[in-house]
């Protein structure tokens, strides 16, 4: 296929891969809204993410086999249509069960589209290596951009708009692929034989799963810290977490300068862990302090995801099935990360919230204000806590109206600031163990990366 004619199809296939892989993280910033609007629990809302990633993990390899049997063009087109239809159902869902069910169907369509895209790309791009590069880069970009796009849509329109917008995008991506599907329908599909070299790359896929768990935790936990802990709006949080995709762009340029996939994978895993370590040790509740860790995570995720995906696919055939294994490993890692870390951080955030409120109340009790006012303030804090579901509350209104006497006013302001400081400390500290564990997972990925090196000799 000549390059000019191939360009729209490569773009469409990259768009399809990016769209589907962004979907594993696109709702991260919308979760707090979904949590409140659908009146569920933190553990319940996590399943909006978990269900999609779990089905992707389970369906990727069977979908790749199906794509080879039914024809990759048809599989990609049908997959994108299913993805779009389920996206519409997600956008119209008014309860958590419907939303989770639609997310599962979305993942089935997505798995078919993504694995079939990898089968179509070599013929379109001109080489398997080039196809693997386009596929891996589209996936990493989608995963990195997902949260920021989801946050902006949630704030400007609604969480439902994330899913509704996927419908036209999926259809646009499907349009150039329809020609291939029609051609397959006309000529029939000859399923290529599976070669013996088709064994999945165990260590690269294992490392992908571990790193994906760490990255999912980084995105999910950071978003929750920003919105639920530090009370940022979804759009504010989207702007903050867009540091990661920007850094990922830098990472992909950096990766282009280093030919060794093992070195890129190792460096990426170290950077992801270092960034998560930084997030676990934030010395203050300040957005600016999340930027250096995010830069490390962003550069790291770009390096490690593309290097491991290329290693898992390199020299292996058929590409779609190995692509299926990498998709399966990545999404299984995301599920592992979410399921392992969510209970830890939900427990920690509740405990830290109580400690923070106690510390704040202690400041009030030990202050020189009128005893009756102390008890009244303690009561207002208690009411405020009951009123804000899960969210760390803003305590400014507790101190309203501020006293007119300058001395009393200064004291009230000091108390308010001290109390909010204790809450910020609690919210930030609640995430530390989970970030720390995620960092450890990222570091552990160095073991399979090291073993992959031996196998590759």
């Amino acid at each position: 296929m000549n390059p000019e004619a191939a360009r729209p199809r490569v773009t469409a296939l990259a768009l399809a891969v990016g769209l589907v892989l962004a979907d594993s993280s696109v709702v991260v910033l919308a979760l707090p809204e979904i949590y409140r609007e659908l009146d569920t629990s933190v553990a319940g809302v996590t399943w909006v993410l978990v269900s999609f990633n779990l089905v992707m993990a389970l369906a990727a390899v069977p979908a790749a086999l199906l794509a080879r049997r039914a024809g990759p063009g048809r599989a990609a087109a049908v997959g994108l249509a299913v993805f779009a239809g389920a996206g519409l159902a997600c956008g119209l869902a008014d309860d958590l069960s419907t939303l989770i069910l639609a997310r599962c169907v979305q993942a089935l369509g997505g798995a078919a589209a993504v694995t079939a895209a990898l089968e179509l790309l070599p013929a379109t791009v001109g080489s398997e290596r080039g196809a693997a590069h386009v596929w891996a880069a589209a996936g990493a970009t989608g995963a990195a951009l997902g949260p920021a796009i989801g946050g902006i849509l949630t704030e400007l329109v609604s969480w439902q708009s994330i899913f509704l917008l996927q419908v036209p995008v999926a259809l646009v991506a499907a349009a150039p692929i329809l020609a291939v599907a029609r051609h397959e329908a006309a000529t029939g599909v000859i399923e290529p034989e599976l070669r013996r070299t088709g064994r999945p790359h165990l260590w690269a896929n294992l490392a992908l799963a571990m790193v994906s768990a760490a990255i999912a935790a980084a995105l999910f936990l950071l978003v929750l810290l920003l919105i639920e802990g530090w009370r940022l709006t979804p759009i504010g949080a989207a702007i903050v977490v867009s540091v990661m995709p920007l850094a990922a762009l830098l990472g992909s340029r950096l990766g282009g300068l280093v030919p060794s996939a093992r070195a890129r994978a190792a460096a990426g895993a170290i950077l992801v862990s270092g960034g998560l370590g930084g997030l676990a040790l934030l010395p203050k509740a300040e957005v600016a302090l999340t930027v250096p860790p995010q830069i490390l995570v962003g550069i790291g995720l770009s390096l490690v995801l593309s290097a491991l995906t290329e290693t898992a696919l390199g020299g292996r055939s058929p590409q779609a099935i190995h692509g299926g294994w990498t998709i399966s490993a990545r999404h299984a890692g995301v599920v592992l990360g979410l399921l392992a870390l969510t209970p830890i951080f939900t427990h920690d955030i509740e405990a830290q919230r109580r400690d923070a409120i106690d510390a704040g109340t202690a400041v009030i009790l030990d202050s020189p204000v009128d005893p009756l006012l102390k008890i009244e303030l303690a009561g207002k804090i208690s009411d405020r806590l009951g009123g804000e579901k899960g969210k760390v509350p803003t305590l400014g209104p507790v101190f309203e109206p501020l006293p007119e006497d300058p001395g009393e006013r200064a004291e009230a302001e000091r108390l308010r600031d001290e109390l909010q400081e204790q809450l910020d400390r609690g919210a930030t500290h609640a995430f530390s163990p989970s970030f720390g564990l995620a960092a450890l997972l990222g570091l552990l990925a160095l073991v399979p990366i090291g073993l992959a090196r031996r196998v590759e000799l």
Partner: protein
Amino acid sequence: MSRGRLLVVGSLVASLALVGVYLAAGGASYAPEKTQNPCKSRAWRNPGNLQQIAEQFSLSALDGAACELGVSREALARALASKEGRERFAKRYGIDDAKLAEAIRAGLVRAVDDAEEAGALSPFIAGPLRATVEQIPLPEAIELIRDARKTLSSLEDLLGPAGGLIEELIP
């Protein structure tokens, strides 16, 4: 050094530098301040007048009651602020009014003891006050914790002729 090694070493240095800087800036200890165990006595701050005695009396009573109930002084203070707060507290900790009343009375007794030990109340006042708070009904006990000023200043009424000694006996 090859580009690959340079990248790995650079990543390691950048990661360690970030973690080191955040540790040095206090990242490991950025957490809410620990509240004091209510079962441990707090030193009274040199009480100079009735208001300060009343404040420290309330805090001491809160500590004593919280210690009895096995909760923090701060959680109990929030509970005593309103009826709703008390109901939430009762539900969360499984504490009924009888148990709460018993704990608050014990807290008030401890407050009298602490005040006496700190030299803020003379034994002449501490004795009758202790006897009074041991029998005090729950609403009045809560009111006493919320604001002990009224009670201390009206001890005169409670104690009859002996109450007149208060102003002289409070250092």
